[in-house]
């Protein structure tokens, strides 16, 4: 059983190791078993169908107890004006295992004259339960969360022998992505085996035609189990008979329905598929029903809900970004916004710089212009100055020349007058 070699298989960062001796973690499943028994189990089952199809009787037969009794009448006895969705909880225990069973029924479904939208209360109920769970799961302070999500829906089909009614198709189409639907043919003892076969085939054909996804048994690796499962698949949808009475047949006491022509036994595999249903629903696949509800239907609801919240209903983001949490999404948006702002800031900065440069340039230009003009004027003035100087010099020259001349003339005159004086004096003698 335990190989003694120490061969290694390396898968990336993981290695497969073979143990050389008993360690003991093979006991883990026992530990899990022990803890689960201590915790107890819960299961929520919904039954839907028109009144009088034997839903209550079937539930009583399935769980071998009087869930529905005169004090707690079944849905067919509680018809109100509109479709209601009601639940009742029962606690049952068997072999040390405790189960809190919630049965949800829909009195009034399909019984009115106008049944439009009679599925709406059902959809609302299921969504509400998902919502409750989502809120509980998202709280900051989480306590043990009660799980009231609907884990299985038994849909009762009237044994007309012909096919599905439009109401059946509508209901299943609207609910197959919210809950595990197990369609059942009710009151199967009104059909002969051949009629039943035909009816079943017709129903499955119509189900496929309308692309309705009913609950599917999971694949297993076990060949035995797969063979078993395939046999069950061939008999879908299951045709059931329920009974509250015990009848003696061939010395045995069995549940059955007494007719003048014989007894239809509930638990006889040749009479109906009740046993298959019970085994599948309770004994082998109850856990899987819970898992599919949790991992598929609830997750679908949750991602749709959170996507709506994150994107505020903007649809074009459907495909991208769903791998993030709303918070991460907000983080990303924040980062985008920061980047956008940075860019905007840069742009504004640029524009600003440009404008400032322009203005400065203008200033410089005018300054240069002013400077130039100032230079110009200075030059002008200097020229004028020089001109003036020149003129003055000329004038001075002229003047001094003239003055010099004048002096000469004056001197001459003086000399002349002196000479004349002299001559005059000479003449007198």
């Amino acid at each position, binding site marked *: 059983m335990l190989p003694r070699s120490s061969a290694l298989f390396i898968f990336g960062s993981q*290695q497969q190791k073979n143990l050389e001796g008993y360690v003991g973690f093979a006991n883990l499943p026992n530990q*899990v078993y022990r803890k689960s028994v201590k915790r107890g189990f819960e299961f929520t089952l919904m039954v839907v169908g028109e009144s009088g199809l034997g839903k209550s009787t079937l539930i009583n037969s399935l769980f071998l107890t009087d869930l529905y009794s005169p004090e707690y009448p079944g849905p067919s006895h509680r018809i109100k004006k509109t479709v209601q969705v009601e639940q009742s909880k029962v*606690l049952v225990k068997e072999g*040390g295992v*405790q189960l809190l069973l919630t049965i949800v029924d829909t009195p009034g479904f399909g019984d009115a004259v106008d049944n439009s939208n009679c599925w709406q209360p059902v959809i609302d109920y299921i969504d509400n339960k998902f919502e409750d769970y989502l809120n509980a799961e998202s709280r900051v302070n989480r306590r043990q969360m009660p799980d009231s999500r609907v884990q299985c829906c038994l849909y009762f089909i009237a044994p007309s022998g012909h096919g599905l009614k439009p109401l059946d198709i509508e209901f299943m189409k609207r609910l197959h992505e919210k809950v595990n639907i197990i369609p059942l043919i009710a009151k199967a003892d009104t059909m002969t085996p051949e009629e039943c076969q035909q009816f079943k085939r017709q129903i499955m054909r119509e189900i496929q035609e309308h692309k309705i996804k009913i609950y599917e048994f999971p694949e297993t690796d076990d060949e035995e189990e797969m063979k078993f499962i395939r046999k069950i698949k061939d008999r879908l949808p299951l045709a059931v008979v329920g009974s509250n009475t015990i009848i003696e047949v061939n010395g045995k006491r069995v549940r059955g329905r007494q007719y003048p022509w014989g007894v239809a036994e509930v638990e006889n595999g040749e009479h109906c598929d009740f046993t298959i249903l019970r085994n599948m629903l309770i004994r082998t696949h109850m856990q899987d029903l819970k*898992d599919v509800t949790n991992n598929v239907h609830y997750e679908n609801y949750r991602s749709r809900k959170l996507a709506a919240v994150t994107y505020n209903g903007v649809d074009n983001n459907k495909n991208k970004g769903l791998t993030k949490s709303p918070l991460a999404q907000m983080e990303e*948006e924040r980062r985008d916004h920061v980047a956008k702002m940075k860019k905007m800031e840069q742009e504004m900065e640029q524009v600003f710089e440009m404008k400032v440069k322009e203005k400065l340039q203008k200033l410089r230009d005018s300054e240069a212009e002013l400077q130039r003009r100032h230079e110009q004027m200075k030059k002008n003035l200097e020229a004028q100055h020089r001109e003036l100087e020149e003129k003055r010099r000329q004038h001075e020259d002229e003047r001094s020349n*003239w003055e010099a001349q004048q002096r000469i003339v004056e001197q001459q005159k003086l000399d002349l007058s002196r000479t004349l004086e002299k001559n005059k004096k000479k003449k007198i003698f």
Partner: protein
Amino acid sequence: MVTHGCLPVSLHVLACNVSSGIPELSGSSSDVAMLKSVELNKEGVSHRNPLSAAASPLAACSSPLPALLGPHSVHTSTALSSGGGCSLGPLPQTTAHRSAMAATDVDVFSNEEKRSLSLGGHVGFDSLPDQLVSKSVTQGFCFNILCVGETGIGKSTLMNTLFNTMFENEEASHYQNGVYLRPRTYDLQESNVHLKLTIVDTVGFGDQINKEDSYKPIVDYIDTQFENYLQEELKIKRSLFNYHDTRIHICLYFIAPTGHSLKSLDLVTMKKLDSKVNIIPIIAKADTISKSELHKFKIKIMSELVSNGVQIYQFPTDDETVSEINASMNAHLPFAVVGSVEEVKVGNKTVRARQYPWGVVQVENESHCDFVKLREMLIRVNMEDLREQTHARHYELYRRCKLEEMGFKDTDPDSQPFSLQETYEAKRKEFLGDLQRKEEEMRQMFVNKVKETEAELKEKERELHDKFEQLKRMHQEEKRKVEEKRRDLEEEMNAFNRKKVATETLSLSQPLKKDKDKKN
């Protein structure tokens, strides 16, 4: 039906299938249950009380329905005699039998009406735990161990010994700059159980001179694993059921066998870790301590832990199947262990042991060390509880702190509970408002900047203008001066000209006089 031990799970399930048809008494447990219920009926407490809110589980099997089946008949009569109706009408419901297995968690419903019903045969949901187990086995388990201890204290050897395999490990040197964590993942299988085991080693712990920050990388690593899980949990599209859980389930803290007391590094580290992870302290290399020293050492350690408020992992005692053994083991903490992968022949057996000149220390000998106890507690009895505690306590604490840090609350200021949508929408509004505010701020800043710069430039312009004005004035002044000079010059020139003219006219008339004089 408690120990399923080696029974492969699927067989058991098939057994249930086989017993379809008329429900038979499955084993003796139902008998016992029936007897119990019979006792109850004798007490005469058969009243129907749908509002007995604390409705606890009943003994399942007794059925007041008239003799269903052969095997039941013996007991049915007793039931009938004590008070059951044999009618098919209203069923007297046997009541309150508080079994030790009352699911505490389901009490959440205590304000809703819950009826307890008895079953009229074997329904078959007692296979639910098997279904759950079978699913878990198919999924595989994962377990993550963190080993904290000084270099060379025997962490790797102990892991090899615990899991009976040689995990690859290079010996670490003492010269690491700091503490770093080295996780390694292995796929192990035992019978049909797959275990993904991750061993995280603290390399370099206790080697530095300054060990103040030694605990930080460890705390960071643990928090990172929590963070990763939290991120996955918060994603819009998430897949938790096949998420590889890397959160640390158990921290084995290796205490050096000094024989005296805990080192301060130990206390500091454990104090930092005790609210984040389950800690089991172990005394390493216990073959260096004598029995009496060990006893004193253990007492010292435990009292130091208590006086410092360090919360180590307590093996759970609430499940009566294991409470006894767990309670006794709690008293042996911390476990003194010896690890060895070498085999030594003792007597006619080959056991794992350490060979000394003075004797052989056998790892699996309970009088030599507590290795077997550790293995028992860690792996064979409480592995699942460790995983649960990590998820339900340590992770929840981390999550709560993280969400509160991010500003999430469960109730709004009016103490009305928030729905998830409201919370997110509120957050989003806040966030958008925040962004808008930032944008406004930036714009405002720019407006201010522009105003400032405009003022500056205007100032410059004015300066320039002033300068220009000044220059102009200067220039005007100069011009005026020049003009003045020019006028002066003109005047002088004019004056000179006049003089000249005057002199010339004079000299013109004078020579006449001279001539006149001459004539005379």
